[in-house]
């Protein structure tokens, strides 16, 4: 209970760096980012213009780090940032931004707006303006190891189920394995088939792998809420386990922001490079395929499409691998408009799905994805992010749409040629 406005402003001063200063200085106020943002296009409300969501941070920069801004503040010509203003901006920064980064793609001067929203959340959370849902999720993640409160016993139960269902051995705490497999809470609770699928694929490929009892959870609420101290602690658990078990590679599961958290933010949070590799499961699948260690048979012969998770395709650069796999497995694979790095977000990334306050807005902005699915006329959608999957399944239910969603890893596992 010790979040204060001063801590928030201090956090703004800490996160303001050279990239942000140059981004704010180069903004030409063209408004192109609005047209790229789901929350603007589906509501038509100009307050959802991405760069506008950063207004308090921009003013803090101007008044703390620029000569004219400082003079304006001293002479009372500029309005200082207030706590009420931060409260007003809370919904803009947390509810209407999924950190999807589509705005960063269209900015003609190259401003990475998503990067700035991520940084701004540091100040917002320090000032106590993070939404309740995210605070709860983050607290649970720190206390129990998972934002959904999933404990190791739950994982153990799923391990048993998968071992029984697929007749595979699921190694735990094994040293010197090729891969450390992580999961997101959603996979543990809703889609445990993921664990079975990864196990079967890695076993068939002849790779050694393991789970870690003290690091099974891949997600990172600290990044979503914007508290680097907490994000560091969460990612540190994975890094600690990977180093203790001396694995060669950590596999980020079918979860978008987990990949961002471990692969991109992780080493920066830890302040050092990792002694192991971090790969998304799709990258691993593609590596195995290229090495001839992924043997597939049969196809799923129905019209389907692929939903690109923002953090994996756009922010992570993993967009060719799923297509290579789908072209092999699904003869009727069709691309959505704006697929790949310009995909439209599911509407629930970046912590929005953990934020109950944002739910009505999340349903509204799903209209974009709905229109995309309807335009294509498919009844099956494949994706590689459990959060996208949960968010879209809820929204499909909300709109009474009869569309099923599959995880790509499971789809691959179902077509393993296990006789070879």
């Amino acid at each position: 209970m010790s979040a204060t406005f001063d801590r928030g402003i201090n956090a703004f001063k800490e996160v303001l760096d050279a990239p942000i200063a140059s981004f704010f200085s180069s903004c030409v106020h063209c408004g192109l980012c609005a047209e790229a943002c789901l929350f603007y296009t589906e509501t038509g409300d100009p307050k959802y213009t991405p760069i506008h969501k950063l207004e308090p941070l921009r003013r803090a920069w101007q008044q703390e780090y620029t000569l004219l801004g400082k003079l304006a503040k001293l002479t009372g010509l500029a309005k200082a940032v207030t706590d009420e203003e931060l409260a007003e901006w809370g919904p803009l920064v947390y509810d209407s931004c999924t950190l999807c980064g589509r705005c960063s793609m269209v900015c003609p001067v190259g401003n990475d707006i998503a990067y700035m929203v991520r940084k701004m959340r540091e100040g917002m959370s320090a000032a106590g303006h993070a939404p309740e849902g995210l605070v709860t999720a983050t607290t649970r993640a720190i206390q129990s190891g998972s934002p959904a409160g999933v404990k190791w016993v739950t994982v153990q139960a799923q391990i048993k189920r998968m071992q029984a269902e697929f007749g595979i051995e699921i190694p735990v705490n094994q040293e010197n394995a090729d891969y450390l497999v992580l999961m997101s809470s959603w996979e543990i609770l809703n889609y445990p088939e993921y664990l079975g699928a990864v196990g079967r694929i890695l076993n068939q490929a002849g790779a050694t792998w393991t789970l870690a009892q003290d690091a099974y959870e891949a997600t990172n609420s600290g990044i979503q809420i914007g508290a680097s101290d907490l994000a560091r602690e969460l990612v540190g658990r994975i890094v600690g386990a990977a180093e203790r078990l001396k694995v060669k590679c950590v596999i980020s599961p079918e979860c978008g922001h987990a990949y961002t958290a471990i692969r991109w933010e992780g080493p920066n949070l830890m302040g050092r490079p990792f002694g192991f590799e971090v790969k998304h499961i799709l990258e691993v699948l593609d590596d195995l395929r290229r090495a001839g260690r992924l043997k597939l048979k049969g196809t799923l012969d129905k019209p389907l499409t692929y939903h690109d998770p923002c953090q994996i395709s756009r922010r992570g650069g993993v967009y060719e691998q799923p297509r290579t796999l789908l072209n092999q497995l699904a003869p009727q694979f069709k691309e959505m408009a704006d697929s790949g790095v310009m995909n439209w977000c599911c509407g629930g990334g970046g912590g929005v799905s953990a934020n109950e306050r944002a739910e009505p807005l999340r349903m509204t902005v799903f209209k974009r994805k709905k229109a995309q699915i309807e335009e294509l006329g498919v009844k099956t959608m494949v994706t590689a992010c459990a959060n996208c999957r949960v968010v879209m399944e809820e929204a499909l239910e909300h709109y009474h749409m009869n569309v099923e969603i599959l995880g790509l890893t499971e789809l691959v596992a179902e077509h393993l040629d296990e006789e070879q």
Partner: protein
Amino acid sequence: MAIDGPTIAEVLRQQGISRRGFLKFCATTASLMALPPSMVPAIAAALQHARRPSVIWLSFQECTGCTESLTRSHSPSIEGLILEQISLDYHHTLQAASGTAAEAAREAAMRENAGKYLLVVDGSIPLGNAGFSTIAGISNLDMLKETAAGAAAVIAVGTCAAYGGIPAAQPNPTGAVPVSAIIKDKPVLNVPGCPPIPVVITGVLAHFLTFGSLPELDALGRPKAFYGESIHDRCYRRPFYDQGKFAETFDDEGARKGWCLFKLGCKGPVTYNACATTKWNQGVSFPIQSGHGCIGCSEPGFWDAGPFYKALSMPIGPAKAAIGAAAVAGLAAGAAVALRNRSAKKSAQAAHQKVTIDDLEKSK
């Protein structure tokens, strides 16, 4: 005189110009002036019936190059004939009369066409000492003021009349000024160039006769139709500039291949004129086409704008020191601001209190 004389069309017919040739001239003039095609009949009708306007031409501190350009270079084009067939009532280089008779002609033209005649001026006006340039014992300043008083409009032909030109170049020993520095109560139209393109003056005359007014001017008093675009933007060598292909010397491979002359000092990018489109000598060529960069002669202060053979991007003369000083001052200011900001950020980092899960909600 002019008011009752033959119309322009009659004069052209006497000169053996067909109606077809006349209309062609009208169409060319319309397109040069960027007027819509629908204006061609209006120009033709106006010129058909226009009486030859009375024109008084005053030459001050000049080299007669403008007169050469306007009266001789295009002979015998239609533009030239139009120029000849205006009623040039006074032009001390061209007229046969001299002395008292010449001045009497000027005074008569001023009296008879008061308020209607066009005054053309070439050359700048010395303000330093009246004796620097006089005509018939009258100083340039007095003659300009007296003649401009009854003129419908004043056309300053050549860079000297328009912007002071070479007489006004540093250190400007005669205190030379352009026409526009003296005449404030009349429309003054500048036709700069050293010398200017002949078709510009005939175009302006045609516009004046057709519409009874001067064409639209830019901020420097030049008709936009001719001075609206830079030489560079209309240059046929522009594609080489865009590709980064430059002649480095006047006899290298690049020069032979006709590459851009920017590095050899071409002032095309900062010069606004119609040379690259209308060209010279009946459309034969213009300086850049002949292999020499533009010297920017139609721009104010062109003589003092740095060496002709130095690229525009290179600093000229004493500016170097100023730029150096500015760079040093800028660096110092930048370093000071950076240091200040760095310490601000450092102290913010020092003030950082580790965020725990108890710090995510507001203190009560």
